[in-house]
């Protein structure tokens, strides 16, 4: 019976055994617990007292191991640190589902193979220059400023909550995912790593620019790693190393230059410069839109004070002298 100090939690738990079931189903349970009880504890109570067949993955119960990431009312969360009270207050129930973007092995347990493959692909280890190996037994201290550049990335516990929340991961197999890119950032800024430039060059054509900067990863991350912001940093560093090499960096640079002298976006010019000769393929769509929106191909008036914008550009993004 629920008492004043407890909340009666209506649970709807995703159940699926691909070896037996044709399709997944949602099983309802009701458990009375204190409002601060984590979702994980409620699931373990269900398994211990009601239904021993429920499969889930967990270990430390202290938000350190990253094992119990799952979807709680459609949000990717660590079940061990998500209290039931606010969820029931907001939704009237708790729907528990496995993480997204990974195939379900059984119930709440997913196959993390692809997640780890993408992580391996960024080569998540220090690559020291073989000509200058770190001498055995010698401490190699970093300056505080160098440590500062790691930002929040060492906090990552690889729980894959960001991977589950990411719409680019679900729409395109070429996207490495937020966690792999945040880890890549961590090695790119490591002063001991000798492969910084190569790493940046490689990632430019290896999915970096498929990030939508939707920040859903940053919302989902239980450790506040803020992957979307580190992906932004990687983009700027990649451009600094290599300039425009593929559509993403070409578009960012074309956009930057688009505003330099006028202060306002010229939509038509942007398309022309991003697509280059391939803009021809975009013409039918452009004409279709222009029938309703004739401004599409008009050149906008420069803003008042466009010279101020140009001077800000001169100070912070000086034009390179022509070669």
């Amino acid at each position, binding site marked *: 019976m629920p008492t004043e100090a407890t909340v009666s939690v209506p649970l709807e738990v995703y159940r699926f055994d691909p070896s037996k079931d044709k399709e997944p189903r949602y099983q309802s349970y009701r458990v009375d617990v204190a409002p601060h009880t984590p979702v994980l504890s409620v699931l373990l109570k269900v398994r211990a007292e009601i239904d021993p067949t429920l499969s889930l993955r967990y270990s430390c119960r202290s938000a350190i191991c990253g094992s119990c990431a799952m979807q709680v009312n459609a949000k990717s969360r660590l079940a061990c640190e998500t209290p039931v009270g606010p969820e029931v207050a907001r939704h009237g129930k708790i729907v528990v589902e496995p993480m997204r973007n990974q195939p379900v092995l059984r119930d709440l347990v997913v196959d993390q193979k692809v997640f780890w493959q993408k992580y391996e692909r960024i080569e998540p280890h220090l690559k020291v220059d073989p000509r200058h190996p770190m001498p055995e037994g010698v401490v190699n201290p970093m300056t505080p400023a160098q440590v500062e550049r790691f930002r929040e990335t060492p906090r990552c516990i690889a729980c894959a909550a960001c991977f589950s929340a990411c719409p680019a991961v679900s729409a*395109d197999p070429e996207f490495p995912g937020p966690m792999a890119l945040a880890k890549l950032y961590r090695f790119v800024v490591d002063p001991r790593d000798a492969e910084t430039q190569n790493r940046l060059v490689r990632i430019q054509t290896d999915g970096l620019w498929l990030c*939508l900067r939707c920040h859903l990863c940053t919302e989902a991350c239980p450790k506040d790693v803020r992957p979307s912001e580190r992906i932004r940093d990687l983009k700027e560093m990649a451009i600094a190393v290599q300039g425009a090499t593929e*559509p993403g960096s070409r578009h960012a640079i074309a956009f930057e230059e688009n505003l330099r002298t006028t202060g306002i976006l010229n*939509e038509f010019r942007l398309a022309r410069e991003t697509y280059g000769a391939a803009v021809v393929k975009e013409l039918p*769509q452009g004409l279709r*839109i222009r029938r309703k929106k004739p401004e599409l191909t008009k050149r906008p008036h420069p803003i008042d004070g466009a010279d101020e914008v140009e*001077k800000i550009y001169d100070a912070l993004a000086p034009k390179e002298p022509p070669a």
Partner: protein
Amino acid sequence: MKLAYYPGCVAQESGKELDLATRWVCRALGIELVPFPNFSCCGSGFVDEANEVLNVAINARNLAIAERAGLDLLTICSTCTGMLTLANHRLADPTVKARVDGALKPLGIEYRGTTKVKHLLRVLVEDVGLTAVKAKVVRPLDGLQVGAFYGCHLLRPSDEMGWESGEEPHAFEDLLAAVGATPVYYRGRVMCCGFPIQFVKGDTASRIAGRQILDAKQHGADAMATPCPLCHISLDAYQNRAEKQVGQRLDLPVFHLPQVVGLALGATPEELGLARHLVPTGPAVAKIRGASSARSTASR
């Protein structure tokens, strides 16, 4: 109420209907919009990718313009809202501030950080208030099921945007209910529209857009409504491409936020620029109970 009006580039160009509808709604609700022809583009997230400090500096200039006039800033685009708000946050870092000041001070521009950036949705919900909006409704949108599409930058990163939940917002649905529409709840409402990678990999971008439109439709939406003209491009102007990616006809009209409010407050479709959409909005407008009589009243 008097606010510095920051329409952003798209609403002054191919998304002109958003500007029309905003002006109509603000006039009806007594919000005075002060234009500043010297506002520049916010950089749309792309300049931020190429050069973060430059992006902060051009937005510091925009913020300083409103600050000099002693006004808060009204935005009607999620990306503009995000970029201007993030500039305010990044300028709290003394290193960033020093570099930006180095570029602005020689021009006699001073950024102090007192201007708030508020999207129209937030102004309607927090400052005008839903009771006041409701009181002005002359044609409740009875019978119209609308899927609010928040997109990303109005909400996230939520620590910086600082008003709604980044994953479970409700302000837009509250507004829709206040003007008599029935809000449709669907998962895609807080997802991305795909726009940022439209130029990078169009098929992936359109697949992402298509999934959200399909999600809204499968949850019973007669139309979507968006607070962002960039989302509008993805969802409306590129809906034909989204259809190809999800392999089915979608045909779902997409309103700009002030168009939905304007309809309820008595504006005609012409006054809201509805004919400028790629997916016709007529079928959705016709679903409003008593729509035909309302239309004839409006045209008289």
